[in-house]
């Protein structure tokens, strides 16, 4: 390999590393966001935003890349969940979708209402427990959750248990209001 080729391959390797990272992590990033938002389309929006942010400022070869992406996916989608803009958009989208569904309309309304209550409750939790729940529910291992949140792996179990209890409490509070 001459110098020119080697230099070209070095330049390309940065882009390749990013493409590899994207291929390996995109579906997981979408899954985390979808778990929070319960909206696959908006979850893909979040994933795009997260990858663009990463691409602009970080090296794809950084060891912390997957952990960064997972945390950013959880926080970005939780921020959207809490935003007024998001609530309005979701309600409009749900109203449109309801017309297209073949499921029993009464049953569908109940499912949607439950899902809405759960997301409102999730948005009320502190960011760290909410992110831990979303990551774990989307299939990340304890080690991956620990890395993404910057906590010790031994703390993840306790964090999740407390978050689960808190979410149930919030959901109950929401439905009894």
């Amino acid at each position, binding site marked *: 390999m001459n110098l020119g080729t080697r230099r070209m391959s070095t330049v390309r390797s940065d882009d390749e590393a990013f493409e590899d990272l994207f291929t390996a992590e995109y579906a997981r990033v979408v899954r985390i966001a979808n778990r929070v938002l319960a909206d696959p389309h908006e979850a893909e929006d979040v994933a795009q935003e997260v990858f663009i942010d990463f691409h602009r400022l*970080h090296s794809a070869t950084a060891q912390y890349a997957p952990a960064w992406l997972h945390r950013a996916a959880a926080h970005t989608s939780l921020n959207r969940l809490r935003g007024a803009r998001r609530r309005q958009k979701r309600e409009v989208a749900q109203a449109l979708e309801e017309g297209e569904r073949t499921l029993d309309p009464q049953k569908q309304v109940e499912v949607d209402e439950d899902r809405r209550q759960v997301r409102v409750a999730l948005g009320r939790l502190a960011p760290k427990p909410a992110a831990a729940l979303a990551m774990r529910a989307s299939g990340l291992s304890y080690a991956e959750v620990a890395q993404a949140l910057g906590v010790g792996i031994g703390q993840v179990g306790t964090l999740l248990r407390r978050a689960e209890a808190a979410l149930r409490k919030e959901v109950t509070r929401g439905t009894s209001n």
Partner: protein
Amino acid sequence: MVDDPDARAGEDAAHLEGCSECRGRFEGISDDARAVATLLAVHDAHVDVAGAFDRMLAAPAAQRRPIFRLPLIRPGRRPVVLAFAAVLAGVALIAAVVAGDLTLNFEPNTVTPVPVTVADMQALSQLSNYGDITWTKQPQLQAATSASDAEALAGMTAPVVSNLPSSVSKNITYGAMTQAEAVFTFSAEKARAAATTQGKTLPALPAGMDGATLTIKVGPAIGEIYGDLQKPAAGSDISQLTLPQLVVVKSSAPSATSTQVTVRQIEDYVLAQPGITPELKAAVQAIGDPSTTLLIPIPVAYTTSKDVTVQGVKGVALGDNTGVGAGVIWVKNGVVYAVAGSIKVDEAIAIANNLK
């Protein structure tokens, strides 16, 4: 154990069978876990990774920014804070010694960047070789989640960015610093020892120099960091830390007072010490009117600077329009302002002009 049935084995499992209290807790936890799994159930998102990758690359915002690598910073929170405080004190000290005004209070109203090398900054830390630096008021640095918390700590209003570029995140982390006061007491004995270790003799000591004090006040200050300051995972290269997208700092202008000798004399004498590099000395002496100038040490590699008018006063803009890093610094009504980040210099100037 809740997530993983295989974990229920051996002594733990046996204990669980026999202990009604633990079994009750375990069942409660399992119940929560099952309920949450149901609550968070969603339809799977079917993704087209290749299509998504193409869309991402096509997005205008995806244009790559070169990584702005910070100089190596060793991990460890306290040393970093101390180093930061030392740099602050150093900045104030240069400002003070250069002020050289016979009136003891100095209030700079313009800023001048001084290109410095790492060696120059290290030379500054050697000031402790010429005397004792004591903090009469320790700076308290505190991160705050809201502007009001930061304002309460610093006792000043937080600056408000009224024209944030769309590329900059709206997530703001506030930082506040209480006023810090450091006293540098010149010691002839220490200076002599320092000179000796460098194989040099101490320059002739002006009358009153031994035991002369220089009191520097810095802050209070408020800083706003836009975007996430990403903490890399353990074991990753710390030099990969990236500049925040935008940092806005507002600080009371530093002030300096002296005893026994004039600030000017301290300036001349400190700059004559063997530990100060000739480059820094030359740069400091090149300043036209030091009595009204605040010097900002800027790493040599980032010193593309130009004079600009910001909010009706003279300021200095650093950096360029590549978006790698740029900043604007100005002093108005006794307050130093700085706007910097991984933005273009034009954006920094626009933000500075519209800062409220």
